[in-house]
């Protein structure tokens, strides 16, 4: 069953076309790697998928529901229900605890699920720590937990391994793959880091 579908997408920035996707679909529980150098439109594509940006041309739809028929409020609700996002710079809210950051993603947070997530990701002992006090590795795990907290259908990850060494990059990628598989969510990773290419079945290489 197709979860996310993009057709005839064109998007420009600063008068220059940065994205052209004739057709792209991601099935439920699928894995997709968007590979390309900086400036090729990977983040823009993720934003289009999450409904944070509206496509200038073309259509994005989730389970048959076209984004361009949805109001801004409905798109916010769709994103909150179906998407989990791991940002390149993680974007945890520094003054909140790890637990609070994770629970921001759900309207009625399931604490048991949150505990199981933090246990699996190895940050159970950091639940009450302020996010600003975490190491980069801990913050990355907390960001992954937040992306999974609302039991999303699709997890989007933007450059999750770009600043990591090989071992760490492999570790984080496997974490993402394992956790999304456990959660039954599709995973779409945008990166310029070709090291993780072998871990994905489907790879879309974007040209600059």
């Amino acid at each position, binding site marked *: 069953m197709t979860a996310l579908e993009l057709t005839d997408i064109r998007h420009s920035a600063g008068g220059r076309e940065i994205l052209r996707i004739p057709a792209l679909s991601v099935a439920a529980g699928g894995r997709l790697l968007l590979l390309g150098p900086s400036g090729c439109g990977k983040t823009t594509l993720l*934003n289009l998928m999450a409904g944070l940006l509206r496509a200038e041309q073309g259509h994005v739809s989730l389970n048959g529901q076209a984004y361009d028929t949805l109001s*801004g409020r409905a798109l916010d609700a769709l994103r909150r229900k179906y998407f989990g*996002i791991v*940002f390149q710079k993680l*974007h945890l*809210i*520094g003054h909140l605890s790890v637990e609070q950051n994770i*629970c*921001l993603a759900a309207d009625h*947070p399931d604490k048991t699920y949150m505990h199981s997530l933090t246990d699996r990701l190895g940050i159970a002992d950091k639940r009450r720590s302020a996010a600003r006090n975490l190491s980069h590795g801990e913050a990355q795990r907390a960001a992954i937990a937040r992306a999974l907290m609302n039991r999303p259908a699709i997890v989007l990850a933007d450059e999750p391994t770009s600043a990591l060494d090989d071992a760490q990059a492999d570790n984080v990628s496997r974490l993402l793959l394992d956790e999304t598989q456990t959660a039954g969510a599709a995973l779409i990773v945008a990166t310029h880091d070709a090291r993780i290419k072998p871990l994905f079945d489907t790879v879309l290489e974007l040209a600059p």
Partner: protein
Amino acid sequence: MSDLSLALHALLSRKIVSLLSVLLTAFGVMMALVVLQFAAAAQQRIDRDGKGVDIVIGAKGSPLQLVLSALYHADIPTGNIPYTEAEKWMHHPQVKQAIPLALGDNWKGFRIVGTTADYAAHYGAKPAQGQLWEAEFEAVAGAGTGLALGQTFSGAHGLGADGHSHDHQLYKVVGVLGPTGSVIDRLILTSVNSVLALHGQETTPAHEEHGDHDDHHHHHHDDDDHDHEHHHDHSEPAKQPAEITALLVKTRSPLANINLPRSINRDSMLQAANPALEMTRLSAVFGLGTRSMGYISAFLIGMAALSIFAGIAGSLDSRSGDLAVLRALGYGRHRLFGLLLMEGLALTAGGLALGFVMGVAGFVLLAPAIPALGAQALQPDIHWLWLALTVLVAGLAASLLPALRAARADPAQLLSQR
């Protein structure tokens, strides 16, 4: 995590700025509250003490001074008047009741008022202990004077606490009045003749005519430094005093409140003043001070609103990433807008609550220092509600613009910049 909790955490993450906004709001509210309380207390005092007195008759001079001295006991009298002259008006057909007052002495700052039992009755004052005076130099103490039943004391000359004492003649407290909340609580009552006898005033048998009085007998106590030679004759106290200080008059009709003072001022050596008119004039001046304080309060509240605006608006840039993350996590524009408004309201509510506590505490601390205001008890009224609403609206308005800006921001752009 509820939105309120999220808003409070955001405020706590910038403690100093938030505290400053709360304190500024609190100071504005405190000042406004204290001004409101003292203005209300002053007005109540004016209304309560002046109730039921339509005209004050006394010696010529300032009508406001006459009213303040005879009705509110807050000024020195304009002088004394011959009783025979006053008596003409006491029995005027338009006069329903006339209460004579003889002023001149005090005990520890509490005025000794020579009068009749009608004066106590006028304020609804009844002896809680003992009884009203019957003989000369028997006194009845107001509830707030601290005098005890059976206690003797000597009156000091003048109306301030530093006059010389009439040690040769002591008053005896034969009654202590119950509290009334009016000016009488701070007075010591006795007979008119007791006051006059201490100052060598001649008393005459009742109804004897005194055609040879001077036209104007100046009050003896305007000047505490003058030489006193008292010639007291207490062996046979007379029933009718030679002089009194003032008459408190209740008329039979509202029309008489206008006509009677006109006649008295035109046809006699006396002066009649309308307390309502004089106090309205005084309020116009006093109100200016209250208004000034009100303006200062409004200014402070305005400053507080600005600080709330500056606090929230100033933090937007540094928080843009956090707010963009919330948008990315599915928080809608309206929810983000509400979140920022909540921050403004939380600051305002905090300042409001602290301001009320400070205002109440300030009033409780200051009120005893101004006993004449009779403002010992807090009197919450509709103005408190208006003050709270005004401050909340100001806080809400201050957070409106930053909230709009945050709600309109493009999360994709902000996340890419951060």
